């Protein structure tokens, strides 16, 4: 795991997008709006969502517990969640 360091909002957005591109290569992420439910918009199943979180944990060091899944369903929510913990 990478030691936690500070990330800017834009850096986090890039990290998230890189992970999403791996899962949904055909999706155009420019159309993903900040308050869209990412899993619904990109048709990400529970298996891919877990892989997404594993990828994020490797990049940022933050492991998001299951009880917080509701807080990180949108791009905006996820970035805010990560910023608060970094």
């Amino acid at each position: 795991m990478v030691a936690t360091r500070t990330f800017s909002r834009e850096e986090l957005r890039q990290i998230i997008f890189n992970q999403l591109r791996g899962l949904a290569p055909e999706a155009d992420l420019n159309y993903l709006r900040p308050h869209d439910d990412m899993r619904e918009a990109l048709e990400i199943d529970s298996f891919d969502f877990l892989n997404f979180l594993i990828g994020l944990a490797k990049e940022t060091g933050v492991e998001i517990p299951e009880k917080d899944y509701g807080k990180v369903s949108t791009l905006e929510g996820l970035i805010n969640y990560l910023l608060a913990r970094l």
Partner: protein
Amino acid sequence: MAEFRMPSLGADMQSGKLLEWLVKPGDVVKRGQVIAVVGTEKGDIEVEVFEEGVVRALLAAPGTEMPVGAPIAIIESAAEAEKVAAAPVSRPADVTGEATKTVAEKVTAVPAPRPANGQRIRVSPLARKLAAELGVDLSQVRGTGPQGAIDKADVERAAAALKAQQEAPPPVPTQPVEAPAPPPPAKPVDKSSAEFQASMRRAIALAMARSNREIPHYYLETRINMAKALAWLEAENLKRPIQNRLLPAVLLIKAVAKALTQVPQLNGYWIDDALQVAEAIHIGFAIALRQGGLVTPAIHHADLKSADELMETLRDLIMRTRAGRLRSSELTDATITLTSLGDMGVEKVFGVIYPPQVALVGFGRVTEEVWVENGLIGVRPVVYATLAGDHRASDGRTGAEFLDVLNRLLQEPETLFSA
């Protein structure tokens, strides 16, 4: 000397294209070793051998389309290989002759016990009895039980394959291939994505049309309170690093497998107008492909696997299904199918049974619902479990019993993974 035939990788498969040989004549092969890659509607499948031996000849050149049941290689069993090694002559020319002879003999072959000097095969008593009844040669059966033991399901599959072979068109005469052709392309993609899509659609159409034509389905559903199961899972996952986290599907797979140990009539095949209950529980788990279509590879012995083993198997299967690289046993071994459409947002799924299986279990999405218990109204996470049963093989009463057991198992998640 045994010919190795193009395997039937599902009720819907007519032929397969040999893409790549991973062995050459003279190679020693072990039981379960992947020896070839075959292109099918479900992706490129790694084909495994059933017994130890020495590859004597490859009968199909890469790129050739071969009907199911056609011999594609000659593999000499380990015991035979010793004899041949002792004999002074070894001639490539003979291989052709012997190959043809073996093919001809095979059709009328009587089941014979494996030679005493060969490696002993483990067979369950039930499997041995069944093999005798069905005329299955045990030395040709690949065991999937503990330590490679042959169980009832293995014999049933072999019998089904034998039947398919007899019904299949006679094998096309083939030129023996002395050595593998020059290295085939590393990833032989000769079908465009659209073509692959179309052929997968056709394969699904074939199997599902057969199911709808032949299987009188009955459907049952029940509402299951998932509060305890999900609480257990959350607590379990808190103890684990994120990469070892379990998905809810692991609980559902295990609960279905355990329920089948109590209601085994739903686990097996409908063959020759009779239900053949399978001894082993191999759950075909429906995995949707992003580009469309689905594959249901088997999770072997799901009832005996721990939570971590199930998660690991699931992860591995999903990755390989998507990469189009499953093994032959995974496509042929399922004794029942489980589909979980929870991620698509639907509440219930009424499935179409994959023949010759006799049941399909479906789970919808977990939703919060009003739940009345002991006269009190509350809100609980709830999932609808459905069962599609083959009415030839079982009745609604059996199906209802299964769903009841399934429900009870999910109310005691802490004991689900204890032996």
